[in-house]
């Protein structure tokens, strides 16, 4: 036994080191995800026996008007969220000055990112409150009546996305600030000698150097948009009448509240496929950069 151990320890140790992390991650995260895909082909209330349903959950999904509302809202989230990287870059450029006191200003700009999304949801629910909120006060000051944004089917999603953009812009700002601190000074100086400035400088000298940061900022923004759940749950519960629902929240409603686990799993599977495209793109680029770097 002892000699066996001695002979093999050079590869046994690494296996022992890897085992707990890999088993836990595969057992909980990877296996669960695969199992969900299987559940989506069954009818199941979460307690009784599962009955095979074939593609019927997916067929039902295609005829469910709520599915299209949720999908449309997911797209609105995705499109509006694309404002986060440029806004984050703008704030990063604004605060990238060496002035006494600027450090505190920078950290205060990060504040929304550190707070939980639930807290951000409460903060904005209060901000939007149509009778007593700050927005109502601003409208009153200009002699208008504030719209009840969160109970208006037309505007509710936009209002929730604006709230969600608040921490997301902070996140992008942190990324771009790190990027700006790593610019190649000699290129900037050379471009200045050549008379580059303003938009031209940003577009042709600075942005090409920020390619890596840009990629990460867009990736985290896409993932953040598709993952949206917390703010919707706290601010609107998907309402009014499902008008602010998204796939992630609809899935939760169908499973936990309506006990339709098979149908919920089918919605999750659709969300998974959409995300998988982005995840594959991200992994592909990341592993390629890794190979080029090494």
């Amino acid at each position, binding site marked *: 036994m002892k000699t066996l151990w001695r002979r093999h320890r*050079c590869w046994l140790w*690494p296996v022992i*080191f*890897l085992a*707990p*992390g*890999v088993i836990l*991650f595969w057992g*909980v*995260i*990877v*296996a*669960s*995800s695969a*199992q*969900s*895909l299987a559940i989506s082909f069954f009818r199941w209330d979460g307690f009784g026996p599962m009955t095979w349903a074939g593609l019927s959950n997916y067929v039902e999904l295609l005829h469910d008007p709520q599915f299209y509302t949720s999908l449309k809202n997911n797209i609105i989230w995705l499109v509006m969220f694309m404002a986060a990287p440029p806004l984050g870059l703008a704030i990063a450029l*604004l605060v990238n*000055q060496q*002035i006494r006191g600027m450090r505190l*200003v920078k*950290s*205060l*700009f990060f*504040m929304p990112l*550190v*707070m*939980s*999304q*639930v*807290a951000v949801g*409460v*903060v904005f629910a*209060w901000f939007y409150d149509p009778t007593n909120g700050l927005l109502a*006060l601003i409208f009153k000051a200009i002699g208008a009546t504030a719209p009840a944004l969160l109970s208006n089917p037309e505007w509710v999603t936009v209002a929730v996305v604006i709230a969600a953009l608040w921490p997301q812009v902070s*996140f992008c700002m942190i*990324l771009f600030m*790190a*990027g*700006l601190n*790593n*610019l190649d*000074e000699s290129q900037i100086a050379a471009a200045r000698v050549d008379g580059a400035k303003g938009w031209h*400088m940003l577009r042709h000298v600075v942005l090409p150097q920020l390619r890596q*940061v840009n990629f*990460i900022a867009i990736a985290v923004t896409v993932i953040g948009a598709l993952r949206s759940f*917390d703010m919707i749950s*706290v601010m609107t519960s998907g309402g009014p009448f499902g008008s602010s629902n998204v796939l*992630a929240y609809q899935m*939760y409603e169908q499973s*936990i509240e309506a006990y339709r*686990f098979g149908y*919920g799993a089918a919605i*999750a*599977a659709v969300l*998974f496929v959409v*995300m998988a495209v*982005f995840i594959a793109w991200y*992994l592909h680029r*990341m592993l390629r950069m890794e190979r080029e770097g090494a």
Partner: protein
Amino acid sequence: MYPRQIKAGEPARKSLYLGSVTLVLFLWLLPLLAIILTSIRPAADIAAGDYWGWPSGFDLIANYTGVFTQTPMGRYFLNSLIITIPSVIGVLCLSTLTGFVLSRYRFRGNTLLFAIFIGGNFLPFQIMMIPVRNLTLDLGIYNTYLALIIFHTAFQTGFATLFMRNFIAALPGELFEAARAEGASPLQTLIHVVVPLVRPALAALSILAFTFIWNDYFWAVVLSPSDAVKPVTAGLANLKGQYVANWNLISAATIVIAIPPVMLFFFMQRHFVRGLTMGAVKG
């Protein structure tokens, strides 16, 4: 530096610039300031519909103690600590091990294992919701701290492995060659070479993991329905439904739950920023 810096000899322009940026910051934080203002307002103001005038008094202490005496927030707060701290410790241990092996040993499937850790980390939570919930029911730990601790440890290990692997891969290779030349076993290398060197990475990682787990809401709702184990995020969402008219209390509770991650962030800002931007920039 870009953009062009204001010259040292122009203090007036510097102050003017700082003043304008502070104004932008004020607008940026306006929704938060509104909550803070409401959280120190006496209940009488709220009852009278006076939300935005100068407060008739400062009930900072009354409102914030009210959060703990009139609502179960104290319980939620303790629950959050009981869930978050062991999860963070678990994540740090597991990811140091996986990160070390994935960065320093060449074997078939290394890249695949690594890619799954990263990819899994980006999955939507809903795709694992039903099986994870069932798993905790089968293990008899549904609606206990352990359910959340196990899930958070498992999930965060994905991101943390990426983090630790990249950090250990960037350490000088001579250290590991020297250890091997001296005949050190992998365990000895781990204890005497890796652990002392990864301390800064562990500091950054612990703040990030703490913030992610503390702020989690989805799993709190799915795995811990009862008040006895509910963490602060799900607790706050409940309060918002129950204390509709008590905005001073809800506001104070919102600030209370934001305090731990905000304090950590302020004290260890450099670690936090370095952790988040790792991968975006070199070094």
